[in-house]
C-alpha cells in the first residue's frame, strides 16, 4: 500500500468511529446492522476462498449467541468475555466437525454445514431446562445497559478485526495455500501443501468470527430463541452480499454488504414479509449472469480501459 492509501484508510476508520456523534439513533442502528452483516459476509467469503462452500454461517452465529447468553446467565460472566467464549465454543465445534468432514470436501461439506443450524435448533429445543427451549431466553439487561453508541463501537471493532483477518489471509502465505487449493487440489497437494490442515484452520477461524458476531448480536438484543437466532436471514443475506459485491476479496464483500445492507433496510420497510425472496433472486441472478460480482465486474471494466 502507498502512503496516501494509509491516510485514506485511517480517515475512513476515524469517520466510522465518529459516526455516533453526528447521526441520529436510526442511522446508528442501521449502520450497526450493516456492520454485523458485513462481518458475517466477510467470514463466509474467507471460507469460500479455500474452495469450500459453507452454509454454516447461521449455525455458528446462533451457537455463539446462545453460548454468550447462557454463560452470562449461568456463570454471571462479564458480557464482553461471554462474547469471546461464544466465539471459542463455535471454534471448538467447527474443529470437531471440520476434523470429521473436511477430508471429504465438496458437496459433503456444503450439505453438512447446511444441516447445522437445523441440528442445533433441535438440540436447543430438547435441552429446554438449560436453554429455555422453544421460547428462548431473555437477559435481564442488554450489554452496556443497551447504550446504542457503545454497542455500535463494539460491532465496529468486530468488523475491523474481521477485515484485518481477511486482509491477513490475502497477504500472508495462507493466501497462496488456499488459492492454489481452490484452483487445483492436486497441484496444491503435490507442491507440498497440507490441504487438510489449512482447511480446518480457516474453518475454525471463520467459525470463531461468526460465533463472536452471534454473541455480540445476542448480547445487543438481550434475547435468544431457536427460530430467531438460527434464522436463515443470517445465512441468506451474507451470501447475497458476497455474491453481489464479488467473491474472493475483502473489498467485494464490503461493497456488497454496504450496498445490500442499505437496500435491505429499505426493503424491510416496504415488504416486511416477502423481502427475503429478493436475496434468493439476487443469488440466482448473480450466479447466472455476473459470476464475478459488482466489484469484479468494475475491476474488469477498469482493466479493459487501461
Amino acid at each position, binding site marked *: 500500500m502507498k502512503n496516501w492509501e494509509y491516510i485514506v484508510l485511517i480517515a475512513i476508520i476515524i469517520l466510522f468511529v465518529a459516526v455516533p456523534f453526528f447521526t441520529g439513533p436510526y442511522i446508528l442502528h442501521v449502520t450497526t446492522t450493516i456492520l454485523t452483516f458485513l462481518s458475517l459476509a466477510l467470514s463466509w467469503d474467507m471460507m469460500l476462498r479455500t474452495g469450500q462452500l459453507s452454509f454454516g454461517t447461521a449455525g455458528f452465529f446462533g451457537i455463539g449467541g446462545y453460548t454468550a447468553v447462557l454463560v452470562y446467565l449461568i456463570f454471571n460472566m462479564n458480557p464482553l468475555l461471554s462474547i469471546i467464549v461464544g466465539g471459542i465454543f463455535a471454534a471448538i465445534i467447527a474443529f470437531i466437525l471440520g476434523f470429521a468432514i473436511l477430508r*471429504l470436501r465438496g*458437496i459433503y461439506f456444503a450439505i453438512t454445514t447446511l444441516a447445522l443450524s437445523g441440528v442445533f435448533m433441535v438440540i436447543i429445543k430438547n435441552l429446554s431446562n438449560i436453554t429455555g427451549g422453544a421460547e428462548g431466553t431473555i437477559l435481564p439487561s442488554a450489554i452496556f445497559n443497551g447504550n446504542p453508541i457503545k454497542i455500535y463501537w463494539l460491532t465496529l471493532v468486530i468488523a475491523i478485526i474481521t477485515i484485518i483477518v481477511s486482509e491477513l489471509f490475502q497477504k500472508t502465505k495462507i493466501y497462496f495455500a488456499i488459492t492454489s487449493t481452490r484452483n487445483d487440489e492436486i497441484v496444491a497437494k503435490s507442491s507440498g501443501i497440507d490441504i487438510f490442515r489449512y482447511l480446518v484452520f480457516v474453518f475454525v477461524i471463520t467459525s470463531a468470527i461468526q460465533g463472536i458476531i452471534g454473541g455480540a448480536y445476542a448480547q445487543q438484543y438481550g434475547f435468544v430463541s431457536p427460530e430467531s437466532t438460527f434464522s436463515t436471514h443470517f445465512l441468506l443475506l451474507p451470501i447475497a452480499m458476497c455474491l453481489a459485491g464479488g467473491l474472493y476479496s475483502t473489498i467485494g464483500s464490503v461493497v456488497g454488504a454496504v450496498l445490500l445492507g442499505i437496500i435491505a433496510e429499505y426493503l424491510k420497510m416496504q415488504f416486511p414479509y416477502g423481502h427475503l425472496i429478493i436475496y434468493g433472486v439476487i443469488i440466482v441472478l448473480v450466479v447466472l449472469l455476473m459470476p464475478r460480482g459488482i466489484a469484479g465486474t468494475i475491476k474488469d471494466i477498469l482493466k479493459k480501459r487501461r
Partner: protein
Amino acid sequence: MNLINRFYQRKNYKISGLLVVILFILAFWKPYALIYGIQRGSLYVLIALPLALSLGVIGILNLAHGDFLTLGAYLAYWICIYTGADPLLTIIPVLFALFLVGYVIYKLAITHVLKASPLNQLLLTFGFAMILEESINFLWSSQPRNIYVSYASTSTTIGSFTFGTYEFIYSVTAIIILVFLLLFLKRTRMGQAAFAVGQNSRGAKLVGIDVERTYLFIFSLSIAILGIVVGLMLPRASIFPMVGAPFTMKSFCLVAMAGLGNLTAIFWSGIALGYAEALVQSFKGYGGWADIVFFIVLIIVISIKSYRRQIL
C-alpha cells in the same frame, strides 16, 4: 472431483444385508418402532430416489429438491380445495405441473451452470431453495394446512397391536418406483442414454447421445416424481412452507449411505434411517432427538468414507 456414477454397485449389499438382520432382531424388541420406521423410511426412499437419479446422471446436487416437494404439496392442496378432488387424484396434474417446473428451471438456469464450478451449482440451487421457501411463506403464510380423508386413518389390529395402515402405501409406491427406475435405466433408450451420460458424459456425446436432452429429461423427471409423493403424503401430513426442506438433507444422507448411483441400496438405507428415528422416538421424553439422527448417521458415513478414502 469427478462424480463417478456407479449404478448397480455390488459392494454395499453386505452392509445392507447386515442391517436387515439387525432390524429383524430389533423388531421383537420394539415392534411399533419397526412398523412406524418402515412407513417413515419408505417416505424417505420415495423422496431420495429422484434426488439420487439427478445427482447420479447430471452430477448436480439439487438443494431445492425438498422445496419442490413443498411446491407440489401446495399445488395438490389447492387442487383439492378448489375442485374437491380426492388427494390421490391430484397426483396426475401435479406430476405434469412439476415436470413442467423442472423443464423451465433446467432451461432457464441449470443448463448454464453445467460447466461451472460445483460451488456455483450449489449456490444456484440454494438460491432456488430460498426463493421457493420464502415465496411460499409469503403467498400462503406459515399456517399449517390439512386435508382430511377418512381412509387415511384406517388401522389394523394384529394380536395386541393396532397400527395405521395407510402409510404402507409409501412402501408399496417406493418399491414400484424403484423397480420402474431400474427398468427404465436398463431397458428404455432414454434410460440407457441416461446411464451412459451419468458414467461419462463426454463419451456419451461422442457416441451420439443427446446429452443436453437427457439431462433435461432426467432433471424434469426427478422433480415430477415428487408429484406422486405429495399426492400420497397429503392425506396424512400437514402442509407448511418448511415441510419439504428437511427432506433434502435426509435424502442426501441416504444417497451418501447408499453410495452414489446405487438405487437399491437407497431403499435399505431409507428403511434403516426411518427405523432408527422411530426407535429414538419410542423412548419417552427423548422423542425430540429423532430429528438429528440423520445428521449423526451422515457424519459417521462421511468419517467411514474418508477413512476408506472413497470420493463420491
